[in-house]
């Protein structure tokens, strides 16, 4: 720990806004990724990115609020993300077996 600068100084140096805006930017990049790509894997990746940006946000809030709950929350996020990804990838594999593509728009029998 000692290699790092005192946290107090750090806090003074980097305002919360910066974290917030960084997270939001990452979130939006993830969102754009979801919208942009039709490759299921990349869409999943983008969703992971979004979740991660939120995690970072939670941690920074947690630190700034001086409250460990935010970090505990991040654990749950990770859990959920992991479970979701597991389900999603399993579903992806299943669908790939059926239709031989990972294009999310390949399936559009259900409409109107």
């Amino acid at each position: 720990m000692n290699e790092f600068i005192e946290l107090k100084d750090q806090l003074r140096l980097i305002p919360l806004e910066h974290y917030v805006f960084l997270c939001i930017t990452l979130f939006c990049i993830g969102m754009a990724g979801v919208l942009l790509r039709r490759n299921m894997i990349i869409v999943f990746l983008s969703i992971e990115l979004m979740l991660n940006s939120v995690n970072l946000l939670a941690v920074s809030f947690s630190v700034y609020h001086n409250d460990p709950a935010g970090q505990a929350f991040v654990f749950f996020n990770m859990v959920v993300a992991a479970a979701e990804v597991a389900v999603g990838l399993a579903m992806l594999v299943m669908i790939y077996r059926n239709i031989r593509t990972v294009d999310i728009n390949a399936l559009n029998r259900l409409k109107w």
Partner: protein
Amino acid sequence: MNYTPAQLIALLIPALPLFGFFIHFLFGKWIKPGFSGWIASFWVFVSFLFSASLFLQIPKEGKQHVHLYTWLKSGAFQVDFAFTIDALSSIMMMLITGVGTLIHLYSIGYMHNDKEIRRFFSYLNLFVFFMLILIMADNFILLFAGWEGVGLCSYLLIGFWYQNHAYNAAANKAFIVNRIGDLAFLLGVFLLFQHTGTLTFESINQFFSSGQPVIPNSSVALTTEPLAPGTILAITLLLFLGATGKSAQIPLFTWLPDAMAGPTPVSALIHAATMVTAGIYLILRNHALFMLSPATMDIIMATGLLTSIFGGLVALKQHDCKKILAYSTVSQLGLMFFALGLGAYHAAFFHLLTHAFFKALLFLGAGSVIHALHGEQDIRRMGGLAGKLKLTRWVFLAGVLAIIALPPFSGFFSKDAILLAAYQKSPLWWLLGLFAGLLTVWYMLRLYFVMFHGNSRLDQQQEKSLHDAGTEMAVPLVVLAVFSVAGGLLNIPSLFLGNQWLSTYLSSVIPLSVSHVSHATEWVLMGTSTLCVLGVTLFARNKYSVLKHVPCEDNSLKNNRLQYMFAGKFFVDEVYHAVIVNPVQKLSDFLFSYIDRKWIDGLVEGTGRLSLFLGSKWKETQNGFISYYLFAMALGMIGILVIFILL
């Protein structure tokens, strides 16, 4: 409830014909056809006797009032089933039951071949009942009930031979045209009620003679101020419009000529003697009210005169003997209205009576001819009947002489009284009235001469089976002929040293008006008119009897515009058809297919269709692509955030 004998009699008078109707209606199956007429005539005859006894009692005991029960009542709106019998109504009752009896009798002979004679007599009885209700009613609504009731019977009897659609159409027309008048009548009554708060003639007359509202059940909502002239004008005009419907005046006369589709006795009873005079009766009944509106009186006078001349002109060129008589009726009724408009109520009523006699006689006489000729009504296919149908010829002649107002026949006195009244107003009116009278002379004589004189234009079969009226038909003819000849005696003017019996009798209801025309003037006027009548008579005799002129076909009249108009009845029916009936039919189509189906229902279904359309459009947003859905979701999130920022 306890009724005095007079009241009981008064109740029995309408009840007996009604009873006769029910007997026919309920037990008609078991009545022998030949017997049916006698039963029906009996009840009417008994009614007549009762009417006569009442008639005799009235001068002594004053008017009778019978309250049977309250028919309808809500606040001040009270309609009693109640009768008032005064001088006016007692004479009318006599007239109706009397002429009614005669025509019933006549019908026994006239209709004896008809399969449905029982139905015929049940209708006739019903008619007499309704007519009596009309005459005896003590209030407007009950009068209206009778008013509509006689219209109903008229409908039934015009369409008596219902297998013929033309007759049915005529019946419908009669009822519908009458309904137009009825609506006006009803509205007039409502207006009257709104301002006076009462519906009985007595209170209304009291109201208008005293100027004080007589409201039996005072209701707060009613206005108690004196009536504005405009209101009275409206009331009287509406009532008059009602009267024009029933009494076949311009503009609602068109049904009457068509009504000749009914059996001839019906034409005689309903469409000449009784029902059509209801309008005149109505105005006589409410003369106090009408007096208050000079404008209405003028309108009545003008309408009457116009109708009279109009009817006369049209009658000039008709070939159907019943049509001629129908237009003659229109014309004569017009004269009566003319008299009413002049304020000559007594003259009008007098003419009403004499007209009832001679017109009934003429119709029955014509019926006798038609009967003899097995339904032939076209005078061009008659001729020379004088020798073969002697009785008919003579009684018919009596009727003709009466109607053309040749002294000393009854028509002379009544028409003279009217002309005198007209002269009092203005010589111009006298002249026009005289003109109308001369038209009568011309077309009646034309009818008479073409029918009875000249060469016979019958076919073989008709010639063979030609027969004069039987006893049942002859008796009424003779009786009516007597009345037509001598009816003038009822009201001999003071000029002939008469005592004006009728006017005196009526004066308890309608006050006598004082004449301010000198006897000399009267003589001159009378002489002039008589000379004119004689002159026209000679002309007519020359043309139709001596020269044996036979009216030609309608289409040959095309060159002569005026005659063509006459023959075509001034095309009033056609005009009405074009102006009212067709537009309404078109409107019906328009409303139904355009407004209703297309717009209103279109709107209703359109909302449904719009929803369906929206549904089909909106569901396309659901296009099945996940990336699109993700977009939508992102945009949705953006959207709610934007809303959040904006709010």
